[in-house]
């Protein structure tokens, strides 16, 4: 009963269950390789990864919910600001054991919470399209942001598989989380699952082909992947 064996068994099941999806995935890979030939083919070395402070809490992150990793949220919010092209960087503090991010604003009391602040930044940058272009898609965006802060941030390494499985199922017929348009939900879920994706072996990632496809898409979306290392999916 070794992993390899179990893994092969899973692959076999996947082949049976998802052969059409796999075919689609292969086509997509070919397409992606064509579009982003250098970035997706260059396998990042481990040294690059280690240079990033984010990975230095590797062990802590493996065992605790992400929220326990200090300053994760402020870092994400700063990256989001850069993506949005906001000129003046904001200062973030955190509160409580869970290190919930706090933003002091001029117009009123401080804003608390990753989702809340992220939405505020999007509005500040006058990019309402990132929050969804209809009532339905706005609700979907809110829903995934909520899912990020409630489920993903409390996920342990074991549970994340369930999260990814569901996400994979969801993305089967979606380009982005809210359909055909890139939104804030994509950015925040991308930030949220990045630590897990970095640690996953290639064959593990391949169990979630739709997530993989979407993830690669998002990390190559201009300006998104700021503070995080590229995750590679090639062999």
């Amino acid at each position: 009963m070794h992993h390899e064996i179990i893994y092969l068994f899973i692959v076999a099941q996947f082949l049976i269950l998802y052969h059409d999806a796999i075919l689609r995935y292969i086509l997509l890979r070919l397409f992606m390789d064509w579009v982003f030939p250098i970035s997706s083919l260059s396998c990042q070395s481990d040294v690059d990864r280690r240079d990033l402070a984010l990975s230095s809490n590797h062990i802590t992150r493996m065992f605790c919910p992400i929220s326990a990793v200090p300053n994760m949220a402020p870092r994400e919010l700063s990256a989001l600001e850069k993506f949005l092209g906001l000129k003046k960087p904001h200062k973030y503090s955190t509160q409580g054991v869970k290190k919930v991010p706090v933003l002091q604003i001029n117009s009123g009391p401080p804003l608390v919470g990753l989702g809340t602040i992220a939405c505020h930044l999007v509005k500040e940058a006058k990019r309402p399209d990132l929050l969804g272009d209809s009532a339905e898609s706005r609700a979907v965006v809110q829903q995934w942001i909520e899912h990020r802060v409630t489920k993903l941030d409390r996920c342990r390494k074991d549970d994340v598989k369930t999260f990814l499985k569901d996400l994979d199922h969801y993305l089967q017929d979606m380009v982005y989380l809210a359909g055909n348009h890139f939104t804030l939900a994509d950015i925040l879920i991308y930030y949220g699952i990045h630590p897990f994706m970095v640690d996953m072996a290639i064959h593990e990632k391949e169990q979630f082909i739709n997530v993989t496809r979407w993830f690669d898409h998002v990390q190559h979306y201009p300006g998104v992947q700021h503070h995080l290392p590229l995750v590679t999916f090639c062999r």
Partner: protein
Amino acid sequence: DATSDPACLLMSNPHCLKVLAALEETGVKCDVQYVSHEERVVPFISRPVLPALLPPTGPHLFSSNAICSYLFEVGGKDCSDLCNQWLEWETTELQPMLLQALHMAVVLEKGSEVSKVLQGPLNYLDQSLSKQNTAYLTGETLSVADIVMWAALYPILSGSSTILGERNSVKAWFERGAKLQSIQSAAQKVLQGKGLQGMKTFLQRQPNPQSKEIQTCTSSPAEAEESERVVSEEEMEAAALTWSKELQDWPLPEDRQHPILPQEDKKNILVTSALPYVNNVPHLGNIIGCVLSADVFSRYSRLRGWNVLFVCGTDEYGTATENKAIEEGLTPQEICDKYHAIHSAIYKWFQIDFDFFGRTTTEKQTVIAQDIFWRLHKNNFLLEDTVEQLRCENCQRFLADRFVEGICPHCAYPEARGDQCDKCGRLINAVELKEPQCKICRKTPIICSSKHLFLDLPKLEIQLEQWLDKSTSTGDWTANAKQITRSWLRDGLKPRCITRDLKWGTPVPHPDFKEKVFYVWFDAPIGYLSITANYTDKWEKWWKNPPQVELYNFMAKDNVPFHSVVFPCSLLGAQDNYTLVNHLVATEYLNYEDTKFSKSRGVGVFGDMAKETDIPCDVWRFYLLYVRPEGQDSSFSWADLATKNNSELLNNLGNFINRAGMFVTKFFEGCVPAMVLQQEDKKLLALVAWELQQYIQLMDKVKIRDSLKHILNISRHGNQYIQVNEPWKNIKAGDAERQRAGTVTGVSVNIACLLSVMLYPYMPTTSQTIRDQLNCPQSVIGTMLRGNGNFVCALGAGHRVGAVSPLFQKLEGDQIEALKKRFSGQQSSVCFHPQTTAQKVASSEAATAPAPAAEATAAADPERAKQLSQAVVEQGEKVRNLKAQKAEKALITAEVTLLLDLKKQLVLAEGKTPEPAPQKGKKK
């Protein structure tokens, strides 16, 4: 607005209350369906989530807050930043506490606890509302945030007027909502007038919110971020009360009377550790996987006052022993005697406190194994069949499974072994291999037929499943043990051959099978019984006494099927009221220096080398237990060992205990000073009591690694306490300060005493040293871990301590580097595979013993080996990938050839002769 969206809602789910209220409040038209708990409405979520809403366009909405926001937006009300913030707060902060409170009130029926649980969020709500001084959460008009929050709080607040207490702002705001028609009618629909009880079914289906909380903080010893636990008044008083209790005179674990037999009025625990195969010197993986884990648990169990018997022994039969004997020019018995002594010495050095360490080559083994055999025979659970076996004419013998290699009949992998294919993982019958080769001489073996006996597992399957259901649900089986067992049952059981054409084994007593012996997998587990029988004639009181005895089996995960399926089947079929395993504790694998898989088995840090490192046994024990592969694979690393020794043992634990002792010696002439407990001291006692309780709860569940964390937490609390109170300063000041210094010193030295007891299972020598240094009364060891833990003041005022000296030594960088180099040897990758009974079956009589280090170095090139092993890994991945993508056959064959070539080069670079072919590294 002509929405015809069906919203699927569920009765009695508190989240549905929000949606129903929002619907009513906004007046949005919507088709509402009520569905059952179990229905999966949202196709992409693997568990049932409700409520859910399917809008006219787009995917399902499954979050109640998103649904409410959507309904409000459709109804013409947008959500502001502040509104967003309240919704986020509701899901992240309020809901977890609310769920816990509801669970308390409804499932555990402890309504009185509710206000304590909700204290935090309600205070926050009250402060925010009074600061804002507005009628609603986001201003002077009602928003979706109000509806969501009212609906969330309504079930619990409407039933009790006391929970809110003096929080007047929340009160006023809540009453505004409670009066609303929308809230009232939604509540009526969801709770159906039953109040909180209306949600019972829903809540019972939720995971216990508290236990989840505990789990999240248990995974990593000491590395999780510290968070200040809030200590209640009651906890402090309870801790202070325990503190003032007396020690009790329980018998000491050292004083146990042999033979230990089950007792009527006691919890009787039989602990076994997988029998290590005699042929190999055990490595660290072996030691942590079985004997050390079992030792910690049995030591702990003795402190709990349970009646424990811990047996183990060497597993000695099989061809591997025969081979080794030929190799060393000894008889098999002499080989066993020699290696049994080596095993004993190693375990002795590691202070494994067996009640009896026996062996399988005894008369008792023959008697018991043959008795079980005859019973199975009589009960018709044995089948007779002719088996075709491979025989190498050149080597003049039947080839054991792992002595044959060939092409896998299922996946065409060219290097499949006689029992299993490394590539597709399927079990193989050696004669099914295409193009079989003798692994020793590479000649093609011939097929001979021979009559053999089989255990009829399919016939026992139903009985087995019934027993498994009971055992796994009532006992503490590790997750991997359950999962491996399930997968065996799912694949269906097949008859298993129990005889072998060998000499060195337990003879089969049946006249038709005279020249044969029992196959090791059948024979070896019976070793547990025969070893106990060699310990005491009354062994049946342990092994045929399921109502009185709880059996714990410790092993690494590769051994699980033999203990959960095969051996239980033998015992069930024998129908002699045998004690079957109640708690199956399996570890994952321990890797060496982050190298994930082994190219050559049997090389690494061996048990007998550990003592040559000059690192004390207790530090080895501590580190191995600290990285115990509990729940997931873990890694042994020299650098980490040094870090843990220096940071945890030296700077945290050792530092605290030493300081506490030194203060008594230096400031109070070696006598524990009088202690006058203040609030702060009581708070510390409560914190310590809580950690102690966690330790006990986790240890009871055999979470050995997790509970170690709580020992280190206590000394961390202690260090902080000393740091804040600065007794070294106070001692020089006035009388009041002097008294304070006395109290702090006295409390600290008593915590050190408690730590010595908690450390006993992990570090027995250190535990004894601390108790000697502090001159602790003998009875502490028996008192403190009883019940929920008793942190009593064992060293009262006036108690005289002994000579105090440092407990641990720093491990220096160069020392560790030297060790690392010494043990990396010619091997670039090493993995500790606990080699025990089952694995011997799996790797049935491995071709040759691992090449001795000296022999191998001749042509070895570690650097090249490292590169090559990397290349092999990559090439292996590539081949797998091609196969997964069903690439063309020719392409695959070409890549496979390349892979084989790389492997051959690797063998050479590792300095081994390619013949016989090396053991294929098993990827884990």
